[in-house]
């Protein structure tokens, strides 16, 4: 596909605000503290009755943290998590007035307010008669998050709810960046959110894709993934606009690649074809050779198929052992639609702190994974560019390239 070359005269896009609610707690600080310490937040699940399931663990946002996020009965758990992360990102960016009002809003989402909808539906099924509280159904669809955030935050720019399975959060960042680059808007609030739902927990159990123990990405004995819940939001911005208003730059969003396998509805392409192309397009978009990328935050789900295909794709793009790789899903679980944005946040923070988060629970590295996957302990490394991979059901591949802002 033709490209105008690196940026092609279009504006640089920078990340000027971060906000995260994760199984570690509310706020970027707690998120980074947990990642840097290599704390695995995957524990016995409490939100769902897991009796009889292959896996009974998940990385949940603690109840005491949820208690601090407001208790509006009109808002779903996911809405509350998203709103908290989005507010932190906007405050971190110091975005005010017209800059804030005209911001675009792109949210990657899948589960919506399904958790509350499920409770209502199951209650009605048990009763065999209409159950009270049908209001929960109004927030069941993913677009409810964008409606809630657009209203509460007073945003008037382009508003989109992007549903691309586990690549949703990354896609929202990528598509938002295009709006900034094209000059449609100078600022955008982008990110992803997903909380635990019965349908997701049961579905991945049914597919036998969940590890009964905390997931072990890239381990020889890996048996699947662990589900998590989170939201991560960013303010992304035209670099010149950000500097002109005195905003702080966390990182530069160099570019992205987005491809489709067009191969299978659940399985990745066995040769990682779409993954390879996504990573190569991202590097081309960023104007970087693979050798300048020091770290890859892998999709790294811990399923045998994904990790095998991703390792193959990484070998083709970077060469054996030529880049450091880790999977933060081993720490906070697979946060579904939020995963791409949560892992983008981890990547940016790793660049900022010069410390790469580890892959937890990695004991016997798969011989087909010829990379240093940073087992168990975070590692200092002063890198200038990093790549974050997100791959979803339906063969949806998104790779994001971030770099330290070297032109403050």
């Amino acid at each position, binding site marked *: 596909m033709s490209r105008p070359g690196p940026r092609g005269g279009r504006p640089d896009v920078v990340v000027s605000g971060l906000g995260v609610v994760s199984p570690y707690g509310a706020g970027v600080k707690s998120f980074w503290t947990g990642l840097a310490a290599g704390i695995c937040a995957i524990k016995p699940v409490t939100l769902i009755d897991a009796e*009889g399931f292959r896996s009974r663990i998940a990385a949940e946002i603690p109840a005491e943290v949820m208690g601090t996020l407001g208790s509006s009965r009109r808002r779903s758990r996911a809405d509350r998590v998203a709103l908290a992360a989005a507010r932190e990102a906007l405050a971190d960016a110091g975005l005010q007035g017209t800059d804030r009002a005209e911001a675009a809003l792109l949210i990657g989402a899948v589960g919506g307010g399904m958790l509350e909808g499920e409770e209502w539906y199951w209650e009605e099924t048990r009763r065999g008669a209409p159950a009270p509280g049908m209001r929960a159904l109004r927030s069941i669809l993913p677009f409810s998050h964008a409606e809630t955030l657009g209203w509460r935050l007073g945003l008037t720019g382009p508003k989109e709810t992007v549903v691309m399975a586990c690549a949703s959060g990354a896609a929202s960042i990528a598509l938002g960046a295009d709006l900034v680059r094209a000059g449609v808007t100078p600022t955008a609030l982008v990110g992803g959110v997903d909380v635990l739902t019965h349908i997701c927990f049961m579905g991945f159990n049914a597919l036998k894709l969940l590890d009964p123990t905390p997931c072990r990405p890239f381990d020889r004995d890996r048996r699947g993934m662990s589900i998590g819940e989170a939201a991560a939001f960013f303010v992304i911005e035209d670099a010149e606009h950000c500097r002109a208003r005195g905003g702080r730059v966390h990182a530069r969003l160099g570019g992205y690649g987005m491809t489709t396998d067009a191969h299978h509805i659940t399985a990745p392409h066995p040769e990682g074809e779409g993954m390879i192309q996504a990573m190569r397009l991202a590097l081309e978009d960023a104007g970087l050779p693979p050798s300048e990328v020091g770290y890859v935050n892998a999709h790294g789900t811990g399923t045998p198929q994904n990790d095998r295909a991703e390792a193959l794709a990484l070998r083709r793009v970077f060469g054996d052992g030529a880049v450091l790789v880790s999977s933060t899903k081993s720490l906070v679980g697979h946060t579904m639609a939020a995963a791409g944005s949560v892992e983008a946040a981890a990547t940016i923070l790793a660049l900022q702190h010069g410390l790469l988060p580890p892959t937890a629970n990695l004991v016997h590295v798969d011989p087909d994974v010829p990379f240093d996957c940073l087992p168990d302990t975070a590692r200092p490394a002063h890198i200038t560019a990093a790549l974050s991979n997100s791959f979803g059901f339906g063969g949806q591949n998104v790779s994001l390239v971030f770099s330290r802002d070297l032109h403050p």
Partner: protein
Amino acid sequence: MTGRRVVITGLGTVNASTVGGRDALAGALAVGRSAIGPVRAFDATKMVSRLAAEVDEATLASLVDRDAARRLSRICRLALGACLLAVRDAGIAGGPGLGMVVGTEHGDFTSSRDFAQGFLRRGPAGLSPMIFPNTVMNTMASIAAIAVGAKAPTVTMNQPTLAGDLAVARGARLIVDRRAEAVVAGGVDELFHDVYQRLAEMGALSPMRGRAPEGCRPFAVDHNGPVLGEGATFIVLEELEAARARGARIMAEIVETAWGNVPTAPHTGRAVRADHVSPVARMIRARDLTLVARCYGSGNGDPAVDDWERALLGRDLGGRADLLPPVSLAPRFGQHGGLGALRVGAAALDAVHGAPSVLVHGIARGGCRTAVLVGPAL
């Protein structure tokens, strides 16, 4: 839009009125008959609402290979059928430059219901790993991408009322931004008992607890709610020079797109809430409107949406009061996720027949607003 020009080179639609490519839609629009009638797919006689615009199952069965159809949910078959028709109409091939954008309001609730029912009946042993993937809303796009070989970005957008319009606008943006050379863009929804029943109970469908008779009457004095339809409409968008180079039958050009948000409480629409700053308001006000021959609107009989749309356009169109109320296609096809793309398709057909400029406008409860300006590809 600046930079690359985007044209429409194909159309496929599977709706309650017709099935086919550009000629089929032109025929259906010319006849002007409403496809709305009593619900046939399930017993609605005890519900508050009883009307819908449904796609005939036998017609749908003829569009998708029988073996493939057995593995696909109804909404996937609707999306796949319309995508295949659009690609055939455009005569375009798959590959790394072909992308896809699918808009939907409700997605595949049938599969979600079936999956949950399996558990409620039999516990963990009742869960079907075959059904679960369908519960994720991007399955329609993924199935269609596999069928047409779309390897550029495949994006699913969840949006009430404007799913199809927004998908077309985003699809055009992907081409302008060089993320794809061509995009199959549109929307899909199916008629599903549980969604229909709940919406009717919540008063979201005609007659909305009103006294006037049930029916879809956008902008009328006695409008009292939308009537649900179902179906899928997709259009093929291409970069102009690439389309010319391959000798494509160009229908029209997407001259400009804009989408934005008019902040309002979720699920509400407010005629009093003005829009001074959204990209849509700015786009419409900045255009020379003298050449606009027609304006299609998202008004679907929902008084909140109808009144809001009329008020917003009244301000933005300035002296072109003759374009109000906008033309609504909801009374013919019923409200569904494909209707926005069908509006864009209708605008493209207007351009084919000489309309110098056609505005496709939309506003949804919750504040999402879209505009797609369509004109002849000169």
